[in-house]
């Protein structure tokens, strides 16, 4: 797809990776020299002179900035740690020397280029520590973690695990509960990493253990428990979610109150806890704001002029798109009649003023998390990770209304896999499923989180994007399809089908101003592409 019309001399991602590998071969001596200069600085007698320290910091900074692009994410991580180490006065000599040695051995290995495309890019460079005394489990988890773009490290004893945790500062930990001779060894490990500045999320693999140990573990920061035999997919999903949660800019709350002082206070409290807050002091603009903000939680005052909080709550509840968004009332009143009326109007929670800061934050988080968990499972297509048709329709309609309001460009693309039935027939349905799963994954990687990537049915995907030129949309879809073929070539399966796709794109306003009309004109384009192809 599209390769024929690329200007001469243009590369595709795999050619680019080859070129970078070549560049690495010629630049390697220089990088080795830089690392050697660090060892030399460390081996000098006594503490570092200020100039030598500045120079070492500069070298670390450079290495951190470039090694990852050469395909050594682990090199970047080690260089960052070294940089941190050199910044401290009275640093631990031997630690830095060990880090430098580790860095040297990393760059002596093969660059890991091009694998990025076979995985979701968001997990790249995140080291995961797998701590289990059972080798089979370690291997299995490790394999799957690598396949999903993590950097797995394994350990078989608590002692070794603690050592590794200090060495690699893991972004997440998969932890066995019991170890031979140490029935609750997992707890010991959690205690050991409890002092970490950046405590990683921990998923525990449990056998039959009592409630109290689980409680202890979750107090020490374990975010999930999976019963053995644990499915690696389930465990890694939990980890990926936890990492996403940390990376995401946090919850979004819409607070409505006619008192600007109240709003300012709520905003200050919640933002202190990394919750984003949009405020609205006139309920009349509520719907417009709701669609702009797309909050995870709505906070409502009860007594407002024009429209009461109860009325807003009832209308939100009657709209299927928002019916599951948690609504919390904040009110100076706490009489039973008011509270009853709030719940009858559809409230999820009622908080009386004055409230405790911590309580407000905890209640908001608890409501949001529950709903997010439910929503994810209900609206995602399990095979491809794309949203299903029903959820996509709701999301797309919101985007279209926004585009109409802002006059912004919006594109709707329909992509289907050419001769997909033939793939199923000749390679088998399992291979067909793998193709679909890869295409779903690489489409999601190619677009932003705000874009809608949907499995529309069978082998048909729909992408709805705002603010992106249709030419770029097509380019991204093409690169996602290329990525699928690269992944197929890299996979452990011997005979994976290569695919091509056909895409029809329509844009607002030329192609229509509703999802139905936009889909219809994109479909028409798709049909033209397909019939053009079969004639030629």
């Amino acid at each position, binding site marked *: 797809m599209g390769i024929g019309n*690329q*200007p001469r*001399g*243009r*590369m*595709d*991602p795999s*050619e*680019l*990776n080859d*070129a*970078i590998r070549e*560049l690495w071969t010629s*630049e390697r001596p*220089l*990088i080795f020299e830089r690392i050697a200069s660090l060892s030399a600085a460390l081996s000098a007698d006594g503490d570092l002179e200020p100039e030598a320290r500045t120079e070492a910091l*500069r070298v670390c*900074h*450079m290495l*951190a*900035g*470039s*090694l*990852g*692009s*050469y395909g050594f*994410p682990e090199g*970047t991580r080690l260089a*960052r740690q070294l940089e941190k180490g050199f910044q401290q006065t009275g640093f631990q000599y031997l630690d830095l020397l060990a880090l430098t040695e580790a860095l040297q051995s990393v760059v002596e290995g093969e660059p890991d280029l*091009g694998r*990025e*495309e076979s995985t979701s*890019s968001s997990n*790249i460079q995140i080291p995961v520590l797998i701590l289990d005394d059972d080798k089979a489990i370690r291997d299995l988890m490790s394999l799957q973690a690598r396949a999903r773009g993590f950097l797995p490290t394994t350990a078989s004893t608590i002692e070794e695990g603690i050592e590794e945790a200090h060495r690699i500062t893991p972004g997440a930990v998969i932890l066995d509960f019991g170890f031979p001779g140490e029935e609750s060894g997992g707890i010991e490990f959690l205690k050991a990493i409890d002092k970490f500045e950046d405590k990683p999320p921990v998923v525990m693999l449990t056998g039959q253990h009592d409630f109290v140990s689980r409680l202890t573990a979750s107090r020490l920061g374990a975010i999930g428990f999976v019963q053995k035999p644990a499915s690696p997919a389930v465990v890694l999903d939990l980890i990926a979610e936890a990492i996403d949660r940390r990376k995401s800019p946090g919850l979004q709350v819409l607070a409505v109150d006619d008192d600007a002082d109240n709003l300012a206070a709520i905003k200050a409290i919640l933002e202190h806890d990394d919750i984003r807050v949009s405020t609205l002091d006139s309920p009349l603009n509520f719907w417009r704001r709701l669609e702009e903000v797309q909050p995870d939680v709505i906070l409502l005052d009860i007594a407002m002029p024009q429209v009461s909080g109860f009325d807003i709550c009832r209308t939100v509840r009657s709209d299927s798109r928002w019916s599951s968004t948690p609504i919390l009332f904040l009110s100076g009143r706490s009489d039973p009649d008011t509270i009853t009326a709030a719940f009858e109007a559809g409230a999820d929670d009622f908080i009386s003023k004055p409230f405790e800061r911590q309580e407000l934050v905890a209640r908001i988080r608890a409501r949001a998390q529950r709903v997010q968990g439910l929503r994810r499972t209900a609206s995602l297509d399990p095979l491809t990770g794309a949203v299903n048709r029903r959820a996509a329709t709701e999301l797309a309609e919101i985007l279209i209304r926004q585009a109409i309001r802002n006059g912004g460009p919006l594109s709707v693309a329909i992509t289907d896999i050419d001769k997909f039935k033939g793939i199923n027939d000749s390679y088998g349905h399992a291979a067909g499923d793998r193709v679909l799963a890869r295409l779903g994954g690489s489409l999601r990687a190619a677009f*932003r989180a705000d874009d809608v990537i949907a499995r529309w049915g069978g082998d048909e995907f729909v992408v709805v994007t705002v*603010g*992106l*030129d249709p*030419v*770029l949309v097509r380019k*991204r879809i093409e690169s996602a399809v290329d990525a699928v073929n690269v992944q197929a070539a890299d996979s452990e399966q011997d005979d994976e089908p290569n695919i091509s796709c056909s895409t029809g794109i329509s844009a607002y306003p030329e192609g229509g101003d509703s999802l139905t009309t936009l889909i219809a004109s994109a479909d028409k384009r798709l049909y033209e592409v397909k019939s053009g192809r079969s004639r030629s």
Partner: protein
Amino acid sequence: MTSIRALIIDDDADILRIAQLSLERLAGWTVTAELSGGNAVNLAISKRVDVVILDVQMPELDGPTIFNMLRANPDTAGIPVVMLTASVQAADHERFVALGADGILVKPFDPTRLAGQIEEILDGLK
């Protein structure tokens, strides 16, 4: 779509080479690469660049200084500037936003996605 013209300034020649490969050969951009920022304003004007990509930590002129030079000249004040930083500190990123940078990219970047990331930033400015 017309090709994007970019000026990239970084004191690490490796970064320039990788970025140039990625932006020119993969994305079809026209790239001017410089190891230092002394000529930044003149180059931005003469090459009629659509975007300037600036490393932050450089000897002599650092990224923020070059940024200010570009903004101080009416002929370059409107050109979007993306800061390219090896720092992952939120405080640093906040500083670049406060300075008025149009976007921040963290090194190391993924060469297969660099152009897309910058395009996204530019799209967001429209």
